[in-house]
């Protein structure tokens, strides 16, 4: 297993944000997380990345307990929100820094950035604009590229398609599919866009009020299922 969650619980006051008995994600699996606002998607990701201390439970990425060791940081790429970016740097300077953390040389970095050129669409590099002055969409491109820069084994992205223009959404989808098939990257992706997420992910988990209420392997009828669920908002459509 690449990622293992046991008995995880996180409450904010009396409100239960995440409550998961057990969740295991296999190596190379692409895992999609869907759910309405407040379902606990971001909280779950933050717990996984040791940004929030869970009330109980443990999380392992590889053999590394995320709250006890930091080994996982060397092979886990993640982007949840702008807090992951350093606003006063140019994208190039930010990539430089991330690359140096993983011992990537300047030459290798240039090669890797070429790989993201289609995603950037000429709007990120060489622009002389600090990251904080970029549009939301371009900030997201920087964040995703930085998460992928060092060939992570595990990739965690929160709402990667939101704020991106349609062309970039398609490019990102292609990129993620390629990572899955060519490099066997384990991916955790949350999204409100059911079409994209069913296309990229082979396994979809539905979160409601912090609980896993559905765990499905993507099949042609998955999208229909999910659409029915969200149209009925938690009615009995899926309770078979």
């Amino acid at each position, binding site marked *: 297993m690449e990622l293992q969650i046991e008995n995880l619980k996180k409450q904010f006051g009396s409100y239960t944000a995440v409550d998961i008995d057990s969740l295991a994600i296999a190596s190379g699996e692409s895992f999609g997380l869907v759910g309405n606002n407040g379902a606990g998607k971001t909280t779950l990701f933050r717990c996984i*990345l*040791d*940004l*929030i*201390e869970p009330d109980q439970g443990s999380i392992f990425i590889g053999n590394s307990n995320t709250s006890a060791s*930091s080994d996982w*940081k*060397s092979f*886990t790429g*993640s982007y*949840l*929100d*702008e*807090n*992951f*970016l*350093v*606003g*006063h*740097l*140019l994208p*190039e*300077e930010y990539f*430089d*820094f*991330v690359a*140096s*953390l*993983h011992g990537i040389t300047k030459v290798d970095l240039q090669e890797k950035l070429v790989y993201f050129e289609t995603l950037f669409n000429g709007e990120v590099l060489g622009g*002389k*604009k*600090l990251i904080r*002055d970029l549009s939301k969409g371009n900030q997201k491109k920087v964040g995703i590229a930085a998460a992928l820069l060092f060939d992570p084994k595990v990739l965690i992205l929160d709402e990667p398609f939101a704020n991106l223009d349609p062309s970039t959404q398609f490019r990102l989808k292609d990129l993620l599919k390629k990572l899955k098939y060519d490099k066997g990257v384990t991916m955790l992706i949350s999204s409100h866009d059911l079409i994209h997420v069913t296309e990229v992910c082979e396994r979809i988990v539905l979160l409601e009020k912090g609980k896993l209420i559905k765990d499905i392997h993507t099949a042609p009828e998955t999208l229909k299922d999910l659409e029915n669920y969200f149209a009925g908002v938690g009615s009995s459509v899926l309770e078979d």
Partner: protein
Amino acid sequence: MNTVVQLLRLEWKSALRSPVLHKNLLVNLFLVLTFLYLAANFLVLGFLLDNILMEVPIDGITNKLFPDDWVLRKLNRFLIYYFLVDFVVRYFMQKLPALAIQPLLHLPISKAKLIHFMLLKTVLSPFNMLQFLVLGPFMFEVFQNLETLPALSWVLSITFLIFALNYLAIYLKRTADVDWRIYVGLLAVLGSIGALTYFEIVDFFKISGLLFNSLIDYPVTVLVPALALLFTYWINFKYLKNNLYLSRISKRQDKEVNYVGDGFLSRFGLVGKMTELEFKFIWRNKRPRAVLLMTALFLGYGLIIFTQDETPMKIYAYIMFAIIITGMFILNYGQYLLGWDGSHFDHILTRRVSFEQYYLSKYMIFAVVGTVCMILSIPYIYFGANILLLIFCVYLFNIGVTAHVVMFFGSFNPKKIDLSQSSMMNWQGVGASQFLLILPSLGLPIVVFALINVFATTNVALASLAIIGLTGILGTKLWVKLLASWLQSKRHEIASDFRNG
């Protein structure tokens, strides 16, 4: 009218619900006390104004010539200076009226109404109100001693001028933003007027007297300040009316920034690289940059100290001076140690950076800037080699001990610093730890020095400062390790505080 009431209620709510008001009780208390103190001073000054003026000897004006209004005519001789200083203070310190106008623009409220509201609101600014505390009692006396018409003319004119300057300052601030050229220009004007007066080339007292006396002698001249007020109001209105578009008021001037690659420090590995990033941070954000400029300004502090005559506590004044030039940055920057990183703390937590490296890079900033300040203070050798030696001892202590203490206190209960705000009169991020822990740590060298000086000579005490400092520098790794493990246990709490504002 109804809209204005609604707008007032919005303002009231925004003031009442301002996060600063709730999170920052101590600072608010401090600000309120400061304000009350100032107001009391001004009021006392206002009541004593005529007595003070009576003491001022001015030839050409005697009791006999102007039996009723000679005090007023004396005051008139100073008014030009008064309004000049008033304007400079306003330009530096008064804040632009901030009505969160963006969310209102698409609502059915006429733009003109919004603008009038925004402009009229500034009347209540303390920069206007405090002036009436000074001049108010005097205005009252003017009514008692002069005939109604001249008195009315004078009082109204002064009132109009106060508000005209209010609108002029706002207009300049808004159109030219905060431009250092205007700062320098203002200071130059002020300086040259001072010089012209001092060398008796132009008698501004006389000019001022002539101008303001005419308000009493020819009451119709009240029209001039009235027109000035209308004009300054009108240019503000006009400007806002033409510029009240989202693209213009949301001040996102995307400055072009050039790529800066690895510098000298990067050769020392990751910590060096992070130190360089920190310098980029300081240079590219207004508030930390102001800290750096402040540090540079204080380098000249010695010129005040060393040109003073001898005082019995001289050695303490010298140590204070040495603390300030080599430790000002440590204190000013270090008090928000983690708060500076509030907007990208999650980045630090998820990257392959250990907290030890993180703290070490923070320490490097202090060491580098402290050392540069030390080197820049070498010219003080002009006042004696002893001075330089003293600076060096205190410098070692600051780098070795004060820096470590500030690093600890700066990590304690940090608040995210809003980097989009400028630094003038900005209290955001200031909390109890600043007042109770960090400011006092500036006095550490003095306390240590005084304690040792009880038992030993001055030289021994100074040498002890240096030795303690050196020990501290050698112990940096150990101290950083302790800080890192402390941060390790507090990381979730701090990160969530930053995320929530």
